[in-house]
């Protein structure tokens, strides 16, 4: 992880350069490569977009991270390492000015050289487009008018020379460097976009130009895509793969059958897990279980309670979204929220909902997923401890005649996994608390809209981390600002004391800030914010001769690592 202090930076820089220069392993001592180094795998849905200014879904990210490069990127262990930057940035003592130095040899896949001006163009464009991840640039001075449409560029971004970028932040932000490793900060070729068109440049292989190790060589929408390494890539070796073929629209069970016949190198990349049938079979078959790997996936799913209105609210009179729900004189909904949470046996939940515990694990350590910074530790969450008798007693006290939960509906978006998950929640609530909750699935946009409007009373809430920093979670989900109507804090939870802690933690470097983030989360748990259910897992099935593929909780391992052995 790049530290700001120069000496640590130098060490990290050296490590980073080493990693980058080697690109990927070129056969770790004694591996014989197969003659055909083509990687094939299936995905169910086509990509929505490959434009870094718009990319947001995990499918799109898998490809974007190979085609595009930025100043920094994540390595396979989620550490931030320099890519086009020559090393760690120089940061002023007040933490508000960042100076980046660029490599002089970086080029786009069409040969165009990359200069500081290209980065300014790309970042300003991302801010102007103001799509899902434009907030990466929110700390930069001048972001708001650019995103709002009244300015074309962010005034805080300058390029003193062709290979230097200077960024002025409005406030110190220790998380900003991590955010710069995201695909949205990648550099794009202004010439190509201008000539091919803002909306269409990424749709065709000839104009999908980036600075990454791979480029797209063929595409039939909704049918297939092909990629090949960029010859003579400036970043060093692009690995041993000579071709990557992706088949789109493949059904889950068909995918595995084809895999077993040798038609696919792996199944699971780009957020396309094998079906439960396969996972179960593979786990129980000793000859096959070696091919199956289960990675944690940095996503938490929890049962959300509406804290501003309804039976679980922190005030009987209701609270205006954005006003505090914590620190009030009393919290009439607390017992209900806690009883609900304690009534769910997460062992049974994970067994039923996640293919006997393969595709998820129980959430006992808070809302930030296991394996990420900010995780509180196994069993650190007392509200996740199953105790049917205590839950029952607590619930009876809270709602003796059952009137509070009358007509309660559990809202979630339709999917096979969610149906399994929440029908088990429904069953357990009925078995353990004797309550009938109605399941109310809908499509995802409708759910999001209802949640943002704070109209959902009992609902599925979930977050998959985009980068390994607690700020990603708090600033999107749990602050008072997000509790306003139309924003992402679906419960309406607002704790000004916690927000103060967060404001301070956001300015500091992650190592100092971790303790504070953990404290913030403990406040949430004390307030019975929700009921954490499970942490996601990402199952992968790979042929025994395919090495170097995997998943690091957030992203697939880079293709530059993957090798196909002789078989």
């Amino acid at each position, binding site marked *: 992880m790049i530290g700001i202090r120069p000496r640590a930076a130098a060490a990290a820089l050296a490590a980073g350069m080493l990693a980058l220069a080697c690109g990927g392993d070129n056969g770790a001592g004694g591996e014989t490569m197969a003659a055909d180094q083509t990687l094939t795998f299936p995905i169910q849905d086509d990509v929505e977009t490959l434009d870094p200014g718009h990319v947001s879904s995990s499918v799109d990210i898998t490809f974007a991270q190979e085609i595009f490069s930025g100043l920094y990127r994540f390595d396979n262990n989620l550490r931030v390492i320099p890519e086009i930057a020559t090393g760690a940035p120089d940061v002023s003592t007040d933490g508000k000015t960042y100076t980046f130095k660029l490599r002089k040899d970086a080029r786009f896949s069409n040969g165009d050289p990359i200069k500081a001006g290209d980065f300014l163009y790309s970042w300003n464009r991302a801010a102007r487009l103001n799509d899902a991840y434009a907030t990466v640039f929110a700390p930069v001075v001048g972001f708001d008018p650019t995103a709002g449409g009244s300015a074309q560029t962010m005034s805080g971004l300058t390029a003193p020379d062709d290979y230097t970028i200077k960024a002025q932040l409005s406030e110190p932000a220790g998380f900003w460097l991590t955010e710069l490793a995201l695909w949205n900060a990648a550099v794009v070729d202004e010439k190509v976009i201008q000539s091919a068109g803002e909306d269409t440049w990424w749709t065709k292989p000839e104009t999908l130009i980036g600075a990454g190790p791979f480029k797209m060589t063929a595409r039939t929408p909704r049918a297939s895509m092909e990629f090949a390494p960029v010859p003579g890539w400036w970043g060093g070796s692009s690995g041993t793969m000579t071709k990557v073929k992706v088949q789109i629209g493949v059904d*889950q*069970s068909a995918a595995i059958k084809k895999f077993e016949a040798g038609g696919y190198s792996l199944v699971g990349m780009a957020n396309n897990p094998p*079906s*439960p*049938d396969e996972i*179960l*079979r593979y786990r*129980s078959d000793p000859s096959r279980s070696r091919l199956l790997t289960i990675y944690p996936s940095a996503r938490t799913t929890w049962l959300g309670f509406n804290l501003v209105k309804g039976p679980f609210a922190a005030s009987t009179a209701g609270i205006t979204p954005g006003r505090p729900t914590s620190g009030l004189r009393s919290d009439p909904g607390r017992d209900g929220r806690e009883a609900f949470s304690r009534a769910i*046996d997460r062992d*049974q939940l994970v*067994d*039923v909902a996640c293919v*006997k515990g393969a595709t998820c694990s129980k959430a006992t350590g808070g809302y930030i997923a296991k394996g990420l910074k900010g995780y509180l530790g196994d069993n650190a969450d007392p509200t996740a401890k199953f105790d049917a008798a205590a839950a029952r007693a607590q619930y009876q006290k809270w709602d003796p005649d059952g009137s509070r939960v009358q007509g309660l509906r559990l809202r979630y978006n*339709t999917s*096979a996994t969610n*149906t*399994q998950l929440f*029908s*088990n929640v*429904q*069953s*357990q609530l*009925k*078995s353990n608390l004797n309550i009938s909750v109605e*399941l*109310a*699935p*809908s499509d995802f946009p409708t759910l999001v809209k209802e949640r943002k409007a704070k109209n959902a009373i009992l609902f599925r809430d979930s977050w998959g981390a985009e980068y390994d920093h607690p700020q990603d979670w708090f600033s999107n989900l749990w602050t008072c600002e997000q509790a306003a109507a139309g924003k992402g804090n679906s419960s309406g939870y607002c704790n000004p004391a916690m927000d103060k802690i967060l404001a301070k933690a956001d300015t500091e470097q992650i190592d100092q800030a971790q303790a504070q983030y953990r404290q913030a989360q403990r406040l949430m748990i004390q307030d019975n914010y929700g009921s954490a259910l499970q942490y996601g897992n990402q199952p992968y099935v790979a042929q025994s001769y395919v090495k170097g593929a995997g998943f690091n909780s957030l992203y697939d391992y880079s293709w530059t690592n993957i090798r196909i052995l002789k078989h």
Partner: protein
Amino acid sequence: MATAPSDYALQEDFVASEQYEVGESVSLWQDTWRRMRRNRLALIATAFVLFVLLVAIVSQFWTPYPIWRQGVGPTYQTPTLKHPLGLDQSGRDILSRLMGGAAISMEVGIGTALLSSVIGIVLGLLAGFYRGWIDSVISLVINVWYGIPDLLVVIMIVVITGRRELLFIIIAISITAWVNMARLVRGQTLSLREREFVEAARSIGTRDFSILFRHIFPNALGPIIVQATYLVPSAIIFEAFLSYLGLGVPPPNPSWGAMTAEGYRSLQYAPHITLIPALALGLTLVALNAFGDGLRDALDPRMRR
């Protein structure tokens, strides 16, 4: 050269070997019942249908385990003594859910048959009797409806309104199912209205409503009942399709179609989860259709000698 006549089916088929006593008068229904009795397949089918109905009714009062309770045992478990049909992917008892599914199938089948029959009969009678513009309008609707794939329409209705309760599904399916009944009744009405007894009734000034329901309707009853009987399995299939696509009654309701769909995800690992409801569905539908066939054959005047 003379090959056995049976190869040419020149012999009278299904000779009514009912030996009626000379002078014995038999009502249509008694005759029908006697003929049904001779058709062994129809008899077995009827018994099976009654059995399913019985199970459906019993399930409303008792099932070995609650149909919704998950985790009563290890998930995906194959049949054991304790759970004769095994457990599904959520650890629910399949036998109990199968019973509940019988109730859903029966409710949907009979409900839709009733509702679409009522609509079809009324519209068919009106179209056939009054002709003119009423007939034109109704016939146009029938013809347009006929050309549209009905499953797609029902899917659209369910998706657009977002309502998934059983009653609503019955209504949605009925919206497309009344057409065949209306056609049939219209045809029957058209021919019956020319008959002498209608002529006679009219001449003595009987009101139209009376003619329709006391003269025409009872005479068309035979084919109507047969058609209505066929509506039951057709509605059950519809609901099964909807549930299979995830658009039917929401969980934990144990529709057989939904159970089949849920089990498909673990088809190789635990085939019993899919096979059992699929077989239940298939057998029930076969029985219902065979029952309908038997009824139709028994009522067919051409087979009566």
